[in-house]
């Protein structure tokens, strides 16, 4: 316990450094700014803003990125409440009741309860991350290459299960991502793989290029073809920003339950934040005495998913920081950022760079505080931003992304690669393939291959090692049963389709 406090104290001393507070504030602000833009989800926001953190010192950069992440998420909720356009899956649930509240003139209350819920969840889960960090890191020491490989398989299977649409398509995306990650020099021998003798590919395909292409550019291309301006911005002036006492009493239980659910689900690999908000909403509706009010502007329907969402966002740092395995696409971006700063995510970060580890954890809490402080007064600004027509918005985003990608390596080729991936992403969307599993696999690819090779070498070519080693075996068993569970309903549905005709 005292160790925990000492660690947190170290963390806060790092995070409270004026520079780092500044980065955190800036990150939360810019993250909200971009996250508020309709149609741009958390992943796209983080991908887009990644380059602006490259010039900073590592600690500052990661703190800023964390700030961007929370900001983007909060920005997404704001858009959901005010415009009814969810930036991404986690905000879908917030739309249901949040937008109804806004229509009833209670947008202020919805937004402030979302902020308060998020802040409470953030406080709890920050402590949780700090408390679980040390024991999980020692668990990581039990992990050999086989276990690491199996854990990553499990993470990818989670991503498959949670992807919308067909399981088969998601698996295909995973394999595509893995394959793409192998372009470039081989880690052990240095042999150029699948480079087609193009010099720029010998270092591999840059992660930021892929992410920016399939999330940023592809999104824009798709949005362009949708009918313009079907937005439904709440026009009435937002008044009464503070929730009433009754609102607070009503939502306190929902916030607490959402926090607990979110914290647990966030640790699971494979995109906990989405499940968390859905689970919290469903749970809240089920235990409510007045379930019929959900979907009609029930404040609990905003409070619970927002708290869960934020708690999950926070605890999803746990697998990343302790095991070095990103559990979802945003964390995959974080790995990308860490690697660029020369930090290899994993258990050694905590022992070798404690100030980075604990500083980041402390800044999570600060980031949440910032959100409450900056967002409530700035709601008016965000509303103005939502009124900027898309025809002016998208060229700005494109230009911004171009400069961002170029600035990573001062390489025009990277910009061209991102453009190609933009087209790829557009094609994928047309064929119901989801890009998130692809990006996650792309990041995990090199790690997976390395561990697979090592495990096979240690086991003298015996592939059963992944099943016979206890921890690894359990992980693979969970992954397999998840896959079966996810595939069964689909198969059954398909069979019915065949027989019905």
């Amino acid at each position: 316990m005292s160790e925990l406090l000492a660690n947190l104290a170290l963390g806060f001393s790092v995070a409270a450094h004026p520079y780092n507070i500044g980065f955190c504030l800036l990150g939360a602000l810019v993250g909200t700014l971009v996250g508020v833009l309709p149609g741009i989800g958390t992943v796209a926001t983080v991908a887009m803003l990644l380059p602006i953190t490259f010039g900073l010192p590592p600690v500052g950069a990661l703190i800023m990125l964390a700030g961007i992440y929370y900001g983007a998420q909060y920005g997404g909720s704001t858009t959901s409440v005010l415009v009814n356009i969810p930036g991404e899956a986690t905000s879908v649930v917030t739309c249901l009741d949040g937008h109804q509240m806004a229509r009833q003139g209670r947008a202020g209350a919805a937004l402030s309860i979302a902020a308060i819920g998020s802040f409470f969840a953030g406080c709890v889960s920050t402590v949780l991350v700090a408390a679980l960090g040390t024991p999980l890191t020692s668990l990581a020491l039990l992990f050999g290459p086989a276990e690491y490989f199996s854990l990553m398989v499990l993470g990818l299977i989670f991503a498959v299960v949670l992807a919308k649409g067909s399981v088969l398509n998601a698996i295909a995306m995973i394999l595509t991502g893995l394959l793409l990650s192998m372009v470039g020099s081989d880690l052990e021998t240095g042999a150029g793989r699948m480079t087609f003798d193009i010099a720029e590919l010998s270092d591999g395909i840059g992660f930021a290029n892929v992410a920016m292409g399939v999330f940023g550019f592809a999104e824009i291309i798709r949005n362009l073809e949708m009918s313009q301006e079907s937005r439904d911005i709440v026009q009435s002036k937002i008044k009464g920003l503070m929730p009433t006492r009754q609102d607070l009493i009503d939502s306190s239980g929902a916030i607490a339950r959402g926090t607990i659910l979110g914290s647990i689900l966030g640790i699971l690999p494979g995109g906990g934040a989405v499940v968390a908000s859905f689970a919290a909403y469903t749970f809240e509706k089920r235990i409510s005495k007045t379930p019929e009010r959900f979907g009609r502007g029930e404040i609990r329907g905003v409070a619970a998913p927002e708290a869960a969402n934020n708690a999950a966002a926070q605890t999803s740092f746990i697998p990343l920081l302790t095991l070095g395995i990103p559990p979802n696409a945003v964390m995959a971006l974080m790995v990308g950022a860490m690697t660029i700063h020369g930090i290899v995510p994993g258990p050694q970060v905590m022992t070798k760079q404690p100030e980075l580890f604990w500083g980041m954890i402390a800044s999570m809490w600060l980031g949440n505080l910032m959100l409450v402080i900056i967002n409530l007064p700035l709601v008016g600004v965000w509303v103005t931003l939502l009124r900027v027509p898309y025809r002016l918005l998208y060229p700005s985003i494109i230009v911004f992304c171009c400069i961002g990608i170029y600035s990573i390596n001062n390489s025009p080729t990277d910009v061209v690669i991102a453009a190609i991936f933009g087209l790829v992403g557009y094609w994928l969307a047309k064929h119901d393939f989801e890009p998130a599993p692809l990006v996650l696999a792309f990041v995990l690819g090199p790690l997976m291959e390395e561990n697979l090779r090592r495990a096979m070498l240690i086991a003298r070519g015996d592939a059963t090692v992944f099943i016979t080693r206890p921890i690894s075996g359990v992980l693979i068993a969970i992954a397999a049963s998840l896959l079966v569970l996810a595939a069964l309903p689909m198969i059954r549905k398909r069979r019915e389709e065949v027989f019905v005709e």
Partner: protein
Amino acid sequence: MAEGVRSPPNGGGLRFKVRGPREFYGGLALIALAIVAIWASGDLPGMHGFAFGPGTAPRLFATLLAIVGALVALSGMLFDGPPLDSYAIRGPAWVILAILAFAGMIRGVHLGFVTVPPLGLIPSTFAAFMISICGSSEMRWVESLIAAVAMTAFCVGLFVYLLQLPFQLWPWY
């Protein structure tokens, strides 16, 4: 399953009717990608003893991708799915053109007989903005020009002055 009458199994065997074209063509493309990957990694050494060679993993995953791609295509043949979406040409074309223009202008480029000199950040940003805005059907000239100038100024301010990244701003620097 509909009870009672069991429907005859899908007409006469070899009738190739694509019922889920999105999946079918998606699957075919994945198979093509896998074949390209297998071909491209064909010259790399494979297993030696217990150790993976550089070519082992790419060929392994490419083979898996080919199998899954085939399954996706197969399910597109067997099960009903949504029809193919039409592709917009105008929006994507301008957007991609804008990105390529930026890439070509910022550092200059040699394309066979044309040589673009390095033009620097300000002209590249401005041009990319103006080209990409043409992709919208609601483009208005005056408004666009003002927005392009504003965005260029914002980017220069952010990347060059605030983040201190080394950029060449104008052609003559």
